[in-house]
């Protein structure tokens, strides 16, 4: 007869097991899952989806059969003190069958897998080229001069964190890295691809509908690996042309005697050693050229020419929009995403809290090897943005200046 405590323990175990199982099932129902690889949004991701379902099903059936047989053997032939059965060795027919059957299953899986890999690696159908360069801990995205990407691109466009692409266009991403190995993955648009220093790897991206598709670095790359994110903004071709036109337009200096004008001076004095703003000139009318290669280990820092045309900053880790405004873009109907994104960041929508914290002390907000005293291996070059010890007035000026970069 079972004691009361035994029954209580068993029912407790059952309850815990049920709770864990239920939690696992409920977790699969998450609505806010922007990096869901089971929810493809383009033909490349769909190819992967069409492959992984049957493979998953085959693996599942095999797993169920194997586990069922193991469970049956464990229960049916468990030790009850019975005599040792007759021992036999060798069963050629069974052994051959158990060799051929898995081989056939693997061949059956390999054929569509190889076909899908070859189709995903075929870049002959791409219509637009975007270079992606990883470095600790952000992605630079540049569009070389080309005839592709809609009506063509007459001069390079350099941005970071957010890649803007036209819908229904197969975009060829040419990726590399400036320091360590990173990995580019937008789960809803294609598989992941390692970005390796000295090598150029390619991956195609295509989105059927306008939208924002999130991703993050998937190769451990150092201290702020978890804070190295990116987003692909897919918009209608007409909206994409408008975005390109904005990115290629001339620099507009702030109105004289404004806070933003003071911010321009502060930017030249404090930020322009690393950050490029195309068209910016100093007091003598000379172009201000950033030289991050002399300051930063990776040799690069985000181009801030059109900073507030983007929605995120610092490796796409923080939003430039307050939550209400961000929701207006992310939750917009598909045909309005492009227009909402092109509105940029208004003063009312600016997430000044995070931006000011970043300007106040960047390494305190995002872990980075930005202390030159600890950088013997890089000869004093920083990884990431250092603390510039800006005053609150300087931060006010810079926020006003950056807000006009759209």
């Amino acid at each position, binding site marked *: 007869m079972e004691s009361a405590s035994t029954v209580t323990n068993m029912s407790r175990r059952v309850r815990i097991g049920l709770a864990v199982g239920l939690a696992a099932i409920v977790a699969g129902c998450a609505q806010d899952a922007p990096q869901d690889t089971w929810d493809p949004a383009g033909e490349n991701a769909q190819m992967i989806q069409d492959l992984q379902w049957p493979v998953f099903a085959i693996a599942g059936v095999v797993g169920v059969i194997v586990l069922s047989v193991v469970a049956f053997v464990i229960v049916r032939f468990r030790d009850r003190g019975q005599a040792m059965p007759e021992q036999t060795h060798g069963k050629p027919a069974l052994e051959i069958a158990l060799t051929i059957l898995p081989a056939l299953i693997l061949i059956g899986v390999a054929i569509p897998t190889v076909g899908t890999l070859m189709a995903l690696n075929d870049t002959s159908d791409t219509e637009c080229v975007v270079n992606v360069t990883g470095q600790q801990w952000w992605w630079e995205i540049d569009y070389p001069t080309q005839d592709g990407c809609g009506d063509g691109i007459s001069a*390079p466009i350099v941005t970071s964190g957010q890649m803007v692409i036209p819908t229904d266009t197969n975009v060829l991403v040419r990726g590399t890295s400036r320091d360590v190995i990173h990995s580019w993955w937008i789960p809803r648009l294609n598989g992941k691809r390692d970005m390796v220093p000295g090598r150029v790897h390619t991956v195609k991206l295509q989105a059927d509908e306008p939208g924002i598709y999130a991703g993050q670095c998937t190769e451990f790359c150092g201290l702020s690996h978890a804070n190295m994110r990116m987003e692909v903004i897919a918009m209608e071709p007409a909206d994409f042309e408008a975005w390109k036109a904005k990115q290629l337009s001339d620099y507009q200096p702030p109105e004289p005697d404004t806070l933003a004008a003071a911010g321009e001076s502060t930017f030249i004095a404090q930020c322009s050693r690393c950050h490029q703003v195309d068209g910016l000139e100093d007091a003598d009318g000379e172009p201000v050229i950033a030289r991050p290669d002399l300051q930063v280990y990776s*040799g690069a820092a985000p181009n801030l020419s059109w900073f507030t045309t983007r929605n995120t900053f610092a490796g796409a880790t923080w939003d430039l929009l307050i939550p209400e405004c961000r929701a207006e873009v992310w939750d917009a109907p598909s045909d309005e995403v492009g227009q909402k994104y092109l509105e940029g960041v208004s003063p009312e929508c600016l997430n000044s809290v995070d931006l000011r914290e970043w300007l106040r002390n960047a390494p305190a907000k995002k872990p980075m090897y930005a202390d030159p005293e600890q950088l013997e291996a890089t000869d004093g070059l920083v990884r990431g943005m250092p603390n510039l010890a800006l005053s609150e007035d300087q931060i006010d000026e810079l926020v006003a200046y950056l807000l006009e970069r759209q």
Partner: protein
Amino acid sequence: MFTTGSKLLIGSAVLAVVSAIAYGTTQDGVMGTIGLVSAAIALAVLAGVNVYTRDSNVWADEISSVETAPAAAPAPGNSIWPMVFAVGALALTVGLVTYQAVFIIGIVILLIGGAEWTAQAWAERASAEASYNSEVRSRIANPLEFPVGAAVGIGIVVYAFSRVMLWLSKTNTVVAFSVVGSIIIAFAFLVAYRPGLRSKATAGVVAVAVVALIAGGAAAGVDGEREIKEHETTAGLEEEGEEICESPEEFEADEKASQSVAATANVAAEITLTEDGELTFDVPGPVEAGATALSLPRSNPNNVIFINESSEHRRLSVDLGTRLEELDEGEEEVPYRVCTTLVDEGGAQNITLIVGAPSAAFPDGYSFFVPGVESAHLELVVP
């Protein structure tokens, strides 16, 4: 008194204590000493447990303990492993005060000798029958000895062979490789078609060949590798004042440079000098050849392949603005050019460009050009 296992553990603990003292008094740093002291403590505890349990044997008051006591067991057979173990311990101790390599070799020998000695001692307690004990030992040890021994043996042979090959001249390596390969094939055929050959004779020949190879490898390794000349680079000559990148003439670097292209993958762009004297380019992806400017990422290595389709030897040069050159009396701004060596008609050459400053940093920007061909000009844009 003490069982064999207990003796081994007690000896190991004493050795660890001696090593800790030797290391602690002769070497800087405490980590090694802490490690050795920790090992001594752990071994001492294990020795104590083993003495208490008498090698997991029966309790002393049981009859079987008398029957299976070491005194009742047959004397152990001859073994080389205690000596190997001692050699390892000696090398380890000597290594502590001499070279790290000796220390590591000592550890390896010590581990091998200890493991083999332990396995043999354990097997000799299996029964009073020596042949059965030997079989037990083989069953336990051979699955580890054979693959590890084979791997080590192959490694030694390959390493010795590589030393000999690097010692010989470039031409003689081909001859030697061919001759040795032919001899091995001929010997293998002989063995296969003449089963009557005595196995001892065959083994003897192989053993002599291996010993000769290892001896040759050791001698070649001591004598050093043959002189391998580095290819001249244009960069080195330019620093010596030669205006090589602006000249269509042939320089010493062009004579000695390799005309082969190694970087066939991960090419950022291919630039072609056409028969008409024009520079065209092609990049991976749908950027049409014939565009007026090539754009390359900043602060990143870009492999560019130059293909010469003209009817003369030509080089591809890149005008990268200016750079500061350090002089005795300060710095001077000098033109910054990089280039390939002269490329044969129909040939190709690789150049890797890393550009830190954007092209906007210089009024004239950056450009590719071919010395001696006025029409060959291509704008380089670095954002």
